[in-house]
């Protein structure tokens, strides 16, 4: 397996270690937290050259997380993507169900090294919160998770999971009641309890050293995937696609490919931003496409903000991408043109969510479904013969309720005899069997589309790629 490698790579783009990525990054936080950020940087710099730390991280990756994660073929889904060969990096199969565990185990080890007994974290979809609560249980640490009240509703199952794991979950009731406000509240806790507590930041945003630290702990995704794709196909992929909220799974899978820029063979790096109702509507989270440079949560990066610098609330069906900022390294990669950032709407993501489920039996997180929608679009552009690596950053169990509402699978369902009262007045029935179900989209045409890939798939034509 690929050994966790936290050493400094030599490539032009891969060697960047902050605090600045171009003009992005830095430390825009109260002076009170500077000693804690310095301490974290120092402990981390010592850890990355300590064989014991690396060995422990490796042991946990193998025995606890279940690394390396698989690289799966997706032959039926590929047929919907213009025949391009889609390869899925299966971070959804990690313990706790997403890539978040990679970062959390590393930061929990650092917490223990600092002698701190309590961890705090923010969470949007709950994936980072669940991962942090899990690590806290594993290492015997007190754990407090901040989560926007709106997200505790959208992700009620994950709130229960965190509580069952022994964590305290604090719903944040001010601001937009989503991820950005959970981060504000976690910082307030940290500045108050910094002596006893470590803030396990969940993404590649925030003040230095978080963008570098979290990226380094997620680099394993791309390092494994690059070797797996080379081994499987004998070449590098044409493109690597990942969803981007704060951007940790994307940085994790992009990083190994940053310097793969040979003339004529550049590996395209594509980040899929949540476009909500559409990037041209007021309800989206397309930070690179629609944001401007500013400071939010401790770093200079792209921010959704008004002309006074007030943060604009983001919107996405996916709680994990519902964030008006983005990590500074992504902002830099966008600025220099090394990575592309494309908006994916709620509707496109939900189609991809259903299509991957129906064609491959893999139910992705709605976050990851944004990347899959991006791959469908890109595959049609690149066509047959192309190889597209997609990061399936998490699994979709937590999203079944949201998807059921979206596709109208719950209300009026004869199976449970109940009506949850969510259907809009006068809406057309969208159920696959004519039952009076109501959602925002219809599952039936997606099922038809999925069925079109059946014959060829069962004929076993994977050999062609």
């Amino acid at each position: 397996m690929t050994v966790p490698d936290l050493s400094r790579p030599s490539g032009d783009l891969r060697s960047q270690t902050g605090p600045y990525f171009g003009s992005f990054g830095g430390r825009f936080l109260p002076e009170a937290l500077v000693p804690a950020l310095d301490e974290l940087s120092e402990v981390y710099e010592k850890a990355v050259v300590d064989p014991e730390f690396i060995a422990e991280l490796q042991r946990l990756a193998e025995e606890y997380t279940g690394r390396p994660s698989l690289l799966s073929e997706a032959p039926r889904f590929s047929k919907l993507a213009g025949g391009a060969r889609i390869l899925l990096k299966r971070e959804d199969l990690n313990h706790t169900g997403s890539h978040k565990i990679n970062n959390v185990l590393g930061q929990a080890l650092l917490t223990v090294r600092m002698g701190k007994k309590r961890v705090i974290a923010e969470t949007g979809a709950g994936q980072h919160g669940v991962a942090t609560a899990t690590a806290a249980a594993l290492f015997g640490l007190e754990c407090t998770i901040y989560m926007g009240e709106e997200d505790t509703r959208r992700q009620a199952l994950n709130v229960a999971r965190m509580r069952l794991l022994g964590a305290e979950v604090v719903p944040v009731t001010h601001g937009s009641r989503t991820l950005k406000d959970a981060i504000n509240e976690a910082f307030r806790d940290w500045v108050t309890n910094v002596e006893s507590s470590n803030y396990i930041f969940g993404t590649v945003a925030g003040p230095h050293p978080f963008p570098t630290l979290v990226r380094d702990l997620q680099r394993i995704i791309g390092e494994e995937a690059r070797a797996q794709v080379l081994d499987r196909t004998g070449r590098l992929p044409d493109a690597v696609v990942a969803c981007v909220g704060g951007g940790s799974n994307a940085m994790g899978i992009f990083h190994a490919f940053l310097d793969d820029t040979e003339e004529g063979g550049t590996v395209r790096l594509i980040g899929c931003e949540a476009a909500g109702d559409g990037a041209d509507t007021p309800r989206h989270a397309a930070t690179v496409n629609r944001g401007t440079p500013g400071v939010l949560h401790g770093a200079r990066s792209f921010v959704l903000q008004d002309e006074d610098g007030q943060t604009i609330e983001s919107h996405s069906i996916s709680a994990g991408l519902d964030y008006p900022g983005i990590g500074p390294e992504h902002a830099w990669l966008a600025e220099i043109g090394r990575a592309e950032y494309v908006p994916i709407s709620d509707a496109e993501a939900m189609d991809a969510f259903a299509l991957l489920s129906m064609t491959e039996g893999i139910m992705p997180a709605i976050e990851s479904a944004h990347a899959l929608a991006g791959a469908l679009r890109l595959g049609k552009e690149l066509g047959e013969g192309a190889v597209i690596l997609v990061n399936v950053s998490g699994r979709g169990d937590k999203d079944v309720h949201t998807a059921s509402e979206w596709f109208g699978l719950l209300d009026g369902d004869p199976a449970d005899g109940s009506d949850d009262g969510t259907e809009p007045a006068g809406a057309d029935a969208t159920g696959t069997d004519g039952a009076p179900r109501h959602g925002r989209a219809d599952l039936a045409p997606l099922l038809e589309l999925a069925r079109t890939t059946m014959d060829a798939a069962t004929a076993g034509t994977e050999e062609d790629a």
Partner: protein
Amino acid sequence: MSERLRAAQVLDRTRAEDRAALIGYLPVGYADLAGSIDAARTLIDHGADMIELGLPYSDPVMDGPVIQRAATSALAGGIRNRDVITAVEQLSGRGAAILVMSYWNPVLAYGVDPFARDLAAAGGAGLITPDLIPDEAGEWLEASEAHGLDRVFLVAPSSPPDRLQHVVAHTTGFVYAASTMGVTGTRASVSAATEGLVERTRAAGAANVCVGLGVSTGAQAAEVGAYADGVIVGSAFVRTLLQAQDEGCGGDLRALADVADDLRSGVERARRAPGGARA
């Protein structure tokens, strides 16, 4: 242009009177722009030597629930960055130094140099920056020099000697010493460790050190005023305004005046009370 009063001038004056300065914080735009200006005038009329005008921001990580609530309400009421300049204009020339306290992104959005220019032209003394450390402040160091503005950076109980020296070296006016690790809000007592922080900050070269976070009563002001050059009070004033608003008498500033009077009498007696004499 109004006659500009800088923070150090005020602190020289209060030092000559052998007392700490009383510094009052209010968010611009709560309950509305005119109301916040009236409230600040009341503070000046009732003993505040300096005013800190908070520029409401959507993501105030250093503020507790009281100031958050007022700032959120001010933003919902449509307050704009430009309004803080208007408020400074209307408050300068009344014998108090007028500072602005702002998170960094609104200043970036305004433009650092334009903000400094307009603040100075309005008669402002300077800017307090809770989430800007000197290491990231290149543009602001230049603009504040160019326009003659006080740069008030913060120190905290967690600050080690090298950080104290670094902050002091880049500060003009006064150093803002946070009395506790935490966010703004009223507290039952001011940490006994605060005096040590003020001493360490002076040892790092600071001419003036003012203490904020958690001071809300005359008794606390008397305690802190015994050793600090200034006592900064925010949440106690804002809480009084919120209460008046909740009781439907938002325009009645008598309760605010009472709180200010109590705090002023605290700094007046700080160095005169038995045992309160400065060492």
